[in-house]
């Protein structure tokens, strides 16, 4: 049945999971950079999630999510064999993937690593050399290291506490890479807003074009409501139809970060009430 969860993998117990979903009509069209909008129940909210992988032959898409509020918590209660009631996509402009002589550096942080994976894979399949740089606070929170090894020529891992890879931030590894390595053709960054802002700043200093994938608040995802608007180069753009990827050097990250807080009190209220009534059936 369409939208059925075929496989579920708990990547970080209680926090991040991966779903492989039977959605042939979306899988046939999904390109790196695309996202879906889903709803988990008839009274649910529409939320966007980036497509972490797609297999047109198998008719599946892969989603990776961080449990952050009511909708993702509810999504996390779905198990293999159950279906997501509403799943809509693929949405957004696909990543512009061109053949480059120099390597492409893909930087990922947190759950963004999963979305970055699909983009890195796209560059790999296009014949580009890809350097992956991924980071997390600590080893247990790292995602997709093995998957990235399959599509990257090099994977650099950083952790804040040094529990895996190099101690420090992805931006430090990126700076070093740009300073000492072969000149990069392009940088792609997906992760938390402060990380993408910092990566864009480093990229700017080295004069390397930098794409960032923005996670603004969305409602319809098809350009109708304007909730996702972001200031790019002083112009208002819609992340859902003009993006979600933009030139990191031109994005007003401060405004983006502020707009992401717009509904925070209500999101907290909704999540708190959900937790009060929900009996956890997580096996971990």
């Amino acid at each position: 049945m369409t939208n059925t969860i075929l496989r579920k993998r708990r990547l970080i117990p209680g926090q991040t999971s991966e779903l492989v979903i039977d959605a042939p009509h979306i899988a046939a069209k999904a390109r790196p950079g695309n996202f879906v909008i889903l709803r988990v129940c008839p009274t649910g909210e529409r939320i966007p999630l980036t497509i972490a992988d797609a297999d047109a032959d198998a008719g599946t898409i892969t989603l990776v999510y961080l449990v952050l509020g009511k909708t993702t918590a509810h999504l996390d209660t779905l198990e293999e064999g159950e279906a997501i009631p509403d799943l809509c996509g693929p949405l957004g402009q696909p990543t512009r993937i061109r053949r480059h002589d120099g390597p492409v550096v893909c930087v990922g942080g947190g759950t963004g690593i999963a979305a970055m994976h699909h983009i890195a894979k796209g560059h790999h399949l296009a014949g580009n050399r890809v350097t992956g740089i991924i980071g997390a606070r600590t080893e247990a929170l790292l995602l997709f290291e093995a998957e990235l090894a399959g599509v990257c020529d090099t994977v650099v891992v950083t952790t804040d506490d040094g529990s895996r890879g190099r101690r420090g931030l992805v931006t430090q590894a990126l700076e070093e890479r740009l300073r000492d390595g072969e000149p990069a053709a392009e940088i792609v960054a997906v992760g938390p807003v402060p990380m993408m802002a910092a990566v864009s700043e480093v990229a700017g200093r080295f004069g390397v074009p930098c794409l960032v994938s923005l996670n603004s608040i969305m409602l319809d995802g098809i350009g109708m409501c304007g909730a996702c608007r972001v200031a790019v180069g002083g112009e208002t753009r819609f992340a859902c139809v003009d993006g979600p990827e933009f030139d990191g050097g031109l994005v007003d990250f401060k405004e983006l970060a502020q707009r992401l807080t717009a509904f925070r009190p209500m999101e907290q209220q909704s999540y708190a009430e959900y937790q009060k009534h929900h009996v956890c059936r997580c096996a971990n």
Partner: protein
Amino acid sequence: MCAAAPTDRKRAKAPRTPMPEQPAGERVANFREVALGYAPDMALAEAARCLRCKKPACVAGCPVGIDIPGFIAALADGDPRRAYAVIRQTNSLPAVCGRVCPQETQCEQVCVLGKKHEPVAIGRLERFVADTFLADDACEELTGAPACPAGLEDVRVACIGAGPASLTVAGTLAGQGIGVDVYEALHEPGGVLVYGIPEFRLPKAVVGREVAAMRALGVRFFTNWVGGRTVTVPELLERGYRAVFIGVGAGLPTFLNIPGENLIGVFSANEYLTRVNLGRAYAFPDWDTPVYPGRQVVVFGAGNVALDAARTAARLGAERVAIVYRRTENEMPARREEIHHAKEEGIELFCLHAPLAFAGDANGRLVSVRLQKMRLGAPDDSGRCRPLACEGEFCELATDMAVVAVGTRANPLLPRTTPGLATNRWGYVTVDEETGETNIPNVFAGGDIVTGAATVISAMGAGRRAAATIAGRLLA
């Protein structure tokens, strides 16, 4: 008719039957319908006022050409079932039209009675008929058979978008046995009827019943399918659909292009109404979609959408709601009845002011808007007085929520992914006005994606024209 003349005159003088309404003080605290609908005796009394003109001007004033005297006569004869069948011959969404059509500028404006007295309340009667006989056995009314036709399985038509234009195409074709599949991007069919028009003017249950009536006729709805993304027009033709109808609306919101527009608390009308209507944010937290709770709300624009947003804000508990408009109340494009309802509900009309800039606090939240005082100048080409700035006269309005309701543009998503589809310079799809056909054979379009933002009924008119052409070809 001569013999009936004296009675006619007496009937005509009878006052128009008022519509029962929820009292303003009560309704402003709930999302239930404002207008409650006629009771049977009221409908009979109102139907009796109709003169049954031989050359009815009202029919010509209806974009879908409902046999208005015919249905009113059936109603006056005490046969709402027949009245419903008459309406359904040309209108697939009577319960919707009876609520949201601008009857006062269409059928009722040209009603002969209106010249000396008050016009027949045609819209209210249509609503009464539709509500009395709501479509659960629509197939019987349309086909005369209790079981629905199996459908001409090899003759299928695809509609993109499930708003009024597509629903009309679907309802009309399905009634003739043609199979219709409707592809809708959102999770619920209805388009603007479910995301845009508030519950207090058009309950979603009413839209749901109209959609159920179409399902009963064999129409299939595929929700969460984005035309131009999940499926494209060329693919639909390749899959064997004999015709494709594009009814995707004109969704892209227009903003004011003034400083501070991305502050938290500044919404497009589309976002605000979609959160509250489609997402049922008025029922938060039982429903998950949140909306920003405005206390001092300012709405820009003066059409029906602006009024819907303002009245919604009042119902969500705002202390003050002001509609800021650069002209005067006389120029407001919204329906008079809705302006009247809004004023009753305490909505302020802050006329002759235009927005200059929004100001926010350190957290990026809206705190005020700076306005330019305006005056009316000489009429321009459109015949409306041109608003002119009063030099040096400004004011500052405190506000924590602003809704921008100044119109929409064509959503480029579908035209962009339909190679060769002709559009005009504003991005709207161009069609043959008689047939609704685009420059691509067997691909039709209608509604806001052709005309720009207009009314539900004009979209339905376009749907009817396209359906007539499609049926003519497929059933020939």
